[in-house]
């Protein structure tokens, strides 16, 4: 008989629309992070480092890149005879066919998967945070407290607390109440969206609420169990935890990696982060190159200058080009003489010769002011920007563009070119 003590269900179906053009062709968990990684590498590596060898990855939005990345789980040692990683997309049924309508609904639709492993506990994880967490310690806490549900919490600064779903606990960390984005917070313990359930409790609740539209853990399942009287504990996580849900927070989290001793340290022997790397060869710096405060991935070739930047695999920075305060992802080329300032350049982008990014005074983005903010230039996957153009701040560009798209060779701050 197949039996696993704990399996993990990793929710990776979201678009992450606040990442704008970065997620126009791929799901948020497949977005690159820290040069060579993808966001999903962090929860997947956490799983295997915590001793969880059975992981269901629930996909929905644009899953191709995620599927290619995960494969059969080799990079995370999740290629197992029994267990390992299984990608779980929505599927057609005889009576009805539903997309995943909410986080809990997605799990409900995969009851059969969980049932197969006869787990005692199920961990529910999100696929969109940067953190290192030992789920085994959380499970120990869960067992010690005889909890039915344990949710991980993170202490956020009081003045930001009203942006989060908060948890109010007693002195033993047992959950008393929930507050969703209250104007006056009574607690600063934010729920991280990470749960450990006793499997029978989870199964019960999912079946009881199966007809709930958009069934969600935070909004429906947890309150339901709480009301029913199940013991819910809060596990206070104290390590690094970073939400990379907006372009600004994504950019900041990347930039933090280049600090002398970064708060989130990828260089520790312990708790390694694994990823699928198809580029193995080393990087090269030419005789005229300059570099300071950067992390640079395999296969990059630097002939120009890079400062305070995160450079992905196989990136080429040509002679005379300058990249500053930017993220450049795998396979992109910054051509000779180009200047890139405070930009996020997605995969396989070509920045033409002498083109300059991140110039002029800031102006709010006309296409989507909320998404494209913070003075960043965001360039989507596979885009081409021609030579000799000047591009402002709060700009989004995606698609193959030519000189005709830039009247007078200029794209002012706040403008966008979106070609899907």
């Amino acid at each position, binding site marked *: 008989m197949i039996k696993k003590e704990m399996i993990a269900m990793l929710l990776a179906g979201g678009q992450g629309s606040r990442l704008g053009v970065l997620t126009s062709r791929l799901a948020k968990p497949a977005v690159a992070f*820290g*040069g*060579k990684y993808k966001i999903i590498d962090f929860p997947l590596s956490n799983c295997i480092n915590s001793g969880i060898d059975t992981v269901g990855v629930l996909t929905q939005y644009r899953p191709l890149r995620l599927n290619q990345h995960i494969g059969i789980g*080799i*990079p995370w040692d999740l290629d197992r005879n029994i267990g390992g990683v299984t990608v779980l997309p929505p599927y057609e049924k005889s009576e009805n066919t539903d997309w995943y309508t909410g986080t809990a609904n997605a799990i409900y639709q995969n009851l059969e998967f969980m049932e197969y492993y006869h787990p005692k506990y199920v961990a529910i994880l999100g696929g969109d945070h940067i953190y290192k967490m030992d789920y085994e310690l959380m499970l120990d806490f869960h067992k010690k407290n005889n909890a039915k549900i344990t949710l991980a919490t993170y202490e956020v600064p009081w003045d930001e607390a009203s942006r989060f779903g908060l948890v109010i606990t007693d002195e033993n960390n047992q959950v008393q109440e929930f507050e969703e984005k209250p104007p006056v917070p009574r607690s600063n313990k934010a729920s991280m969206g990470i749960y450990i359930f006793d499997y029978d409790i989870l199964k019960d609740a999912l079946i009881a609420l199966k007809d709930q539209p958009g069934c969600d853990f935070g909004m429906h399942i947890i309150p339901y169990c709480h009301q029913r009287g199940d013991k819910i504990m809060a596990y206070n996580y104290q390590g690094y935890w970073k939400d990379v849900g907006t372009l600004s927070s994504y950019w900041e989290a990347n930039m933090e990696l*280049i600090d*002398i001793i970064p708060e989130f340290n*990828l*260089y520790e022997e312990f708790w*390694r*982060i*694994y*990823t699928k*790397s198809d580029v*193995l*060869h*080393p*990087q*090269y*710096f*030419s*005789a005229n*190159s*300059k*570099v*300071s*405060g*950067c*992390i*640079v*991935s*395999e*296969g990059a*070739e*630097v002939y120009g200058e890079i400062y305070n930047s*995160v*450079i992905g695999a196989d990136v080429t920075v040509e002679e005379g080009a300058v990249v500053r305060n930017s993220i450049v992802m795998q396979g992109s080329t910054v051509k000779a003489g180009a200047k890139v300032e405070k930009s996020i350049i997605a995969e396989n982008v070509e920045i033409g010769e002498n083109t300059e990014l991140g110039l002029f005074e800031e102006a709010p983005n006309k296409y989507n002011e909320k998404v494209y903010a913070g003075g960043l230039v965001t360039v989507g996957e596979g885009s081409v920007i021609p030579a000799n153009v000047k591009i402002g701040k709060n700009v989004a560009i995606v698609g193959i563009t030519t000189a005709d798209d830039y009247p007078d060779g200029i794209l002012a701050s706040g403008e966008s070119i979106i070609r899907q």
Partner: protein
Amino acid sequence: MKAIGIILAGGNNKRIGRLSDKRAISALPIAGSYRAIDFALSNMTNSKISRVAVLPQFNARSLNEHLSSSKWWDFGRKQGGLYVFTPTQTKDNNFWYQGTADALYQNIDFIKKSHEPYVIIAAGDGVYKLDYNAVLQKHIEKNADITVVYTNLKETDDDLTRFGILKLDEDERIVDFEEKPLVAESSDVSIGVYVIRRRHLIEILERCAREDRYDFVKDVLVRYKGVRKIYGYKLDSYWRNISTIDSYYRTNMDFLKKDIRDYFFKEYPDVYSKVDDLPPAKYNAGSDIKNSIISSGCIINGKIENSVLFKDVYIGNNCTIKNSIILNNVYIGDDSYIENCIVESRDTLRPGTNYVGTNDEIKIVVEKNVRYIL
């Protein structure tokens, strides 16, 4: 699946000095991210040869560690796989491999049990790309008994007398084969890659064993050169052997040239290696990198010039590394100066260390200190 592959990885050579104290030549790190044997293994897998045996002997631990999983080269299939055959004592034999032919003979069961009609034998210490099928194709066309891959080293300043020197007629048949001659009469050298029909190999090996002959070059190629049809196949692209300090140093330095990097790293097919899951290299303020190769996991605070840094190297503040090769997982303390050196892997250099070699005599640095009290 016309052929099986056998990689001869047993060799040691005094001319590589202390670098082979703890590893076989085939396990020597190359070009920042690779080991020498990766080239032969990648050639095998890129030539769709799926059953490959590696025959190590000398200092095999480092090599075995590198080959601990065959998945990096896409072996480990139901039809095929990567087999590592270190010498073992058996009922009939309690000797080490006494030579290359003996190494093959001691594994003759593997050769006999295969069903592929041909065998590709390759040395594990060459840095090159080659489609072995092209060699096999020519072998079949020429109806050869053995085909030997050779290259011309006229353009290099390598010492020819350390190789097997070939003389070929206009049909590329080998008319003379001299192993490590006193004077090299030609610059065509064998690269240690042979194609031979499997049944023919079995026959030759059994005969060698009966006659107490152990060396594939001396006792097969040289001895049979007039009797059997031994043809050459010319490799026109980059090839280097790395079994002396000088050639090892220069081969690594070759990767500072763009055309060589492009040939190995960018052009099809790729070279594969064991994945180490190291983070991207990190360059703190104070880094100054000129014409150098840096590998993943490195943390750099100093000046690097015309050098090759392997994986997981730490360079302290105010250091200068010049014309040097720093092997895997080396820690170099602040204010150190290294020039014309090869620093052995896992070394820990105290702050203020000074090592200077010359271009003609590259210094091998082996220094063991306890890292974590620094």
